[in-house]
């Protein structure tokens, strides 16, 4: 664990010293400020739209940080040749993969914490009744979502270039968020064997849509049941561990 933590800390230093995080933060402030002005007009329904949009921004910005950080971690170590002094130390390749994954999670969670804090403040200042439990659930789901994104980016970095990795991750994100329901419908209404093939693809794809509480937060619906949260946590842990295991195995075979 000591080794994994030491490797992860490099990413934290990078986050603090790079401008990306601050630029997104300022952009977020400006956008939320702008959205809160829209809210003052009290047009019916606009509060929901504003919340929806604000939450989408929080998730999108955190997603950008998670993907761009995690995707380049291992390829950059190889390119800069810092991988050699690192692997010459008592560091296994699994440690390295886990360290990079943890670094990605810490960096993106720290960003998410700040962005979500802003969003929550903006949300609560709206004056409407809002379930704090739901806000907390949104926070937990956000972190689970970032774990999944970091694990995917680390996994893809074994065989994709950084730009291809980021592109695939973005496509996957939008496809899963936007078309997951349609995909499910297609499985239900198609004939065998097509439905079986589609079902297989559907179940192996990472369900980034599970973490999307946008509509629930926008409409102030009831919080999720505990069993739903437990199921999503279990799904995320299993999926991430599986991806990290495969990544570690692939990285172990890689001739550097």
């Amino acid at each position, binding site marked *: 664990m000591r080794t994994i933590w*030491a490797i992860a800390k490099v990413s934290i*230093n990078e986050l603090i010293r790079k401008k990306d995080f601050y630029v997104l933060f300022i952009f977020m402030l400006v956008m939320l400020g702008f959205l809160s002005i829209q809210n003052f007009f009290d047009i019916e329904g606009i509060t929901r739209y504003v919340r929806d949009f604000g939450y989408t921004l929080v998730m999108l910005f955190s997603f950008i940080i998670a993907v761009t950080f995690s995707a380049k971690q291992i390829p950059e170590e190889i390119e800069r040749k810092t991988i050699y002094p690192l692997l010459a130390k008592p*560091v296994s390749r699994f440690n390295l993969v886990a360290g990079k994954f943890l670094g990605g999670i810490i960096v993106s969670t720290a960003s998410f914490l700040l962005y979500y804090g802003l969003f929550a403040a903006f949300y609560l200042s709206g004056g409407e009744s809002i379930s704090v439990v739901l806000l907390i659930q949104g926070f937990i789901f956000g972190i689970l979502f970032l774990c999944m994104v970091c694990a995917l980016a680390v996994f893809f970095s074994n065989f994709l270039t950084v730009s291809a990795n980021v592109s695939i991750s973005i496509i996957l994100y939008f496809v899963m968020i936007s078309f997951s329901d349609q995909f499910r419908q297609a499985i239900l209404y198609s004939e065998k064997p097509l439905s079986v093939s589609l079902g297989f693809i559907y179940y192996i794809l990472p369900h980034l849509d599970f973490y999307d509480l946008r509509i629930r937060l926008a409409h102030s619906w009831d919080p999720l049941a505990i069993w739903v949260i437990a199921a999503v946590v279990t799904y995320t842990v299993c999926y991430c561990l599986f991806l990290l295991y495969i990544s570690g195995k692939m990285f172990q075979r890689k001739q550097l």
Partner: protein
Amino acid sequence: MDQIISINNLHYSYVSGKASIEALKGIYLTVRKGEIFGFLGPNGAGKTTTIKLILGILTPKKGEVKVFGGDPHKSQTRLSIGYMPETADYYKYLTPVELLRMYGAIFGIEKSLLTKRIDELIRLVDLEKAAGRAMGTFSKGMMQKVSFAQALINDPDLLILDEPTGGLDPVARKNMREVINVQREREKTVFFSSHELSEVELVSDRVGILNKGELVISGPVEDLLKGKEEKQTLEKYFLQIIGE
């Protein structure tokens, strides 16, 4: 444990395009405790590949490498190794102190001891003025100094240096020679590859010459030059051996 590095019938090949290239063709080599071993060879001879195999970064296709009598693929075997690569562009957002702290943490060095060790190393490589600066602004020579310092962070029993003097000024080279000599006095082992044959001649107890993946000859420098014409230098001998 007298044998620090033991290499038996080591083969390694890699694929480049459609061709399979045999980088190492069955080398045998032993490096003993307290020895300064110079590993020589022209570009592409297989020196760095051999070093990567000694460090467990690569896996042999055939043959065996043992370090401290163990498998270098196991993390525990590498606890007492220090390695300085030929080139490495260390994290540009970190300062040398932060880099050394990170590597020290990997070895599990206790905090106060690590702080003391980092101070010593920063002084040793003459980077006091740049210790708090991000490495993104460093020259090649400064980066080599950082690289040398990180190789010593765990006070290793085996120090492996791959072309250590490239990019260093004469003062830094002299400092490095002194450090190697101190390592010898402390009965530590140093294995280093270099193109700077005069440097090798100055510090090595024994040398091995690698050419086209084969260890052509190895032995003490004086023995290799014994009986040869007067003013024979290692450089002349090396050129004869590799057929230039």
